[in-house]
C-alpha cells in the first residue's frame, strides 16, 4: 500500500489537488518513457541526417584530411558526372525491374497457396524460407550458382542451352541481381497478399460464380479490387525497399562489370569508403534521401486517390 492510498481523504479540494498532482506526474512519465527512444533517435538518426546535408557542402577527402567549404560545387559536379547519371539510371532500372516482378509473383504465389489443396501450408513455408535467410548468405549462394561454370549454367547445358557468364556480363548482371532479390523477399509480400485474399468474403465470389462468372473474371472484377488497399500498401513498401540492395550488390558484383550494376546505395558507400571522397559521397546520400522522400510523397498521394474503400 502506497502512502497516497493510506492518507485519509481531506476535503474535496485536497482530493482535486492530489488528482492534479497525479496527472502532472503522469504527463512527466510520458516524457520519461519516450526519452531513451527519442534522445537515441536524435543522436543516431536525426543529427546524422542534418549532418549529411552539411557535409555535402564540403570538398572533404578523408585521406587528404582536408575539407574546404565549397558550397554547392559537389552538386554541380554530380550533375556533370556521367557515372552519377549512370548510377541513377541503374537505380531506377533496378526498381522498375524489381517492383512489377515482385508484386506479380507475390500475387501469383498468394493465389496458388490460397487454393484449398493438401500441402499448401508446406508450400507457403518453402516460399517464405528465403525471407529468414540472411541476405548475404543468399547472395553468396546465388553468386556461386551464377558463375560461368556454376550450377545454373551446368543445368542449362544438360538441356542443350548455353548460359552466359551472368555476373560478368553488362547485359545479364543487372537482371540477375533483380531476380535474386525478388526470390529473397517475395515470400513476405506473398504472405501479406494471402492475408488480404483470405479477408475477401467467399459469399461474394460464390454469388458471382452462380451468375456465371469464370474464375479469371471473378479474380479481376471482384478479388483484385477488394484487395486493392493491400496491393497499394505492399507496393509502397516494395518500391522503397527496392533501393535497399546494398548487400546483394556488394557481395555479388561490387557494382560491376563496368559500373553496370552500380546503384545509388552502393555508389554512396564506394565514394565514401573506397574513394574516401566523403563530401562528394554525402551529396549522393542527399540525392538518395530526396528520391526516397519524393517517391514516398507521390505514393501517399496515389494511395489516397486510387484506393476508395480503405478501412482504417
Amino acid at each position, binding site marked *: 500500500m502506497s502512502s497516497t492510498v493510506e492518507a485519509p481523504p481531506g476535503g474535496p479540494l485536497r482530493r482535486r489537488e492530489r488528482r492534479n498532482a497525479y496527472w502532472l506526474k503522469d504527463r512527466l512519465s510520458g516524457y520519461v518513457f519516450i526519452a*531513451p527512444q527519442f534522445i537515441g533517435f536524435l543522436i543516431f538518426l536525426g543529427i546524422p541526417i542534418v549532418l549529411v546535408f552539411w557535409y555535402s557542402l564540403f570538398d572533404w577527402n578523408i585521406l587528404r584530411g582536408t575539407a574546404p567549404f565549397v558550397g554547392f560545387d559537389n552538386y554541380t559536379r554530380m550533375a556533370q558526372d556521367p557515372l552519377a547519371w549512370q548510377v541513377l539510371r541503374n537505380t531506377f532500372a533496378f526498381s522498375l525491374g524489381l517492383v512489377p516482378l515482385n508484386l506479380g509473383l507475390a500475387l501469383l504465389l498468394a493465389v496458388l497457396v490460397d487454393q484449398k489443396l493438401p500441402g499448401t501450408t508446406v508450400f507457403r513455408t518453402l516460399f517464405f524460407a528465403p525471407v529468414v535467410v540472411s541476405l548475404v548468405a543468399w547472395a553468396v549462394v546465388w553468386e556461386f550458382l551464377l558463375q560461368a561454370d556454376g550450377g545454373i549454367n551446368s543445368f542449362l547445358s544438360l538441356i542443350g542451352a548455353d548460359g552466359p557468364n551472368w555476373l560478368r556480363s553488362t547485359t545479364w548482371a543487372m537482371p540477375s541481381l533483380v531476380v535474386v532479390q525478388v526470390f529473397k523477399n517475395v515470400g513476405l509480400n506473398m504472405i501479406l497478399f494471402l492475408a488480404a485474399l483470405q479477408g475477401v468474403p467467399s459469399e461474394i465470389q460464390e454469388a458471382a460464380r452462380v451468375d456465371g462468372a469464370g474464375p479469371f473474371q471473378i479474380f479481376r472484377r471482384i478479388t483484385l479490387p477488394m484487395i486493392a488497399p493491400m496491393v497499394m500498401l505492399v507496393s509502397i513498401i516494395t518500391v522503397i525497399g527496392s533501393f535497399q540492395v546494398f548487400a546483394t550488390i556488394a557481395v555479388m558484383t561490387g557494382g560491376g562489370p563496368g559500373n553496370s550494376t552500380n546503384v545509388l546505395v552502393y555508389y554512396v558507400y564506394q565514394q565514401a569508403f573506397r574513394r574516401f571522397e566523403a563530401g562528394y559521397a554525402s551529396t549522393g546520400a542527399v540525392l538518395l534521401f530526396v528520391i526516397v522522400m519524393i517517391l514516398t510523397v507521390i505514393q501517399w498521394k496515389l494511395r489516397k486517390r486510387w484506393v476508395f474503400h480503405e478501412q482504417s
Partner: protein
Amino acid sequence: MVAASEARRRLNWARAALYLVIVLLLVPFVFPLWWMVTSSLKTAAEVFAFPPVLWPTDPQWSNFARVFELQPFALQYFNSVYIAVLVTAGVLLISSMAGYAFARVRFPGASVLFLVLLGGLLVPREVIIIPLFQMMNQAGWIDTHVPLVLIPMFGAQSVFGTFLMRQFFLGLPKELEEAGRVDGLGRFGIFFRIAMPLATPALAALTIITFLQTWDMFLEPLVFLSTPERFTLPLALTQFADAYGGPIWNVQLAATTLMTFPVLLVFVLAQRQFIQGIAQTGLKG
C-alpha cells in the same frame, strides 16, 4: 453419374496441373538452399563438375573444419549472436516504453514527436552512414562493436519497434490498466506489471524481426570493422579466399550453411510465429 465422374476427372487434372506449377515455382526458392548444403560437402573438383553433382559421392566434412581454420569463425559466430541478443533486448525495452507512452500517456507534443520518429523510418541506412562513421570515429569506437549495438538499438530498428508497440498498445483494452490505477500503481507499475505481460505476442514478433535484422546487418560491420576477430557472420562470409584472392567455394558455402542452418531450423519449428510475426511487422520497409 457419367457427368459427375467426368467432372471429377477434370478436377483431378486441374489439381495435378496446379501442383506441377507450384513445384516448378518452388525450384528457385528451395534449390539454392539444397545447392548450398550439398556444395559445402563437395570436393573442389566436384564444385564445378559437369554434369552437376546433386549429392557428393564422398561428403567432405573437412570443409567445415576448414571454415574454422581460415577464419576465427567461432568467435565471429559469438560476435553475431551476442550483438543480436543485446540489440534485441535493448529494442524490446526502449520500443515498448516509447510505444506505450505514445499509445496511452497524454502529454503535450506527443503526436508531433511521434511523426518526427516515423519520418526516421524512411531514411535508408546508406544516407546516414557517413555522419555516423564520423561520429563513431570521434568517439573512438571504430573497429569496436559499439556502433553495431548502438545504431540499431536506437536508430531505425527501435523506431520501427516503437511504431509496432504503439499499434499493439492502442488495441489493448484500457480497463485492464484502470484496475491497476485504482490499486495505486503509477505509470511505471502499470507498464511493467500490467501492460508488458499482456504484450507478449507483439514482443515475440518484435524479437523475431529485430534479431533477424541485426543478424543480417552488413553495411555497418563492413564500414566499422577491420579486425577479423571482431567480424560478424555476414562480413565473415565474404572473406573466404585462397592465397591469390580466389574464392574457395566449398568452404565458403560451409560457412554459409553454418550461418543459415540454425535460423532455418528455428523457422521450421516455429513457422507460424515467424510468418505471422514478420507479416504483421512486414511493413518494415
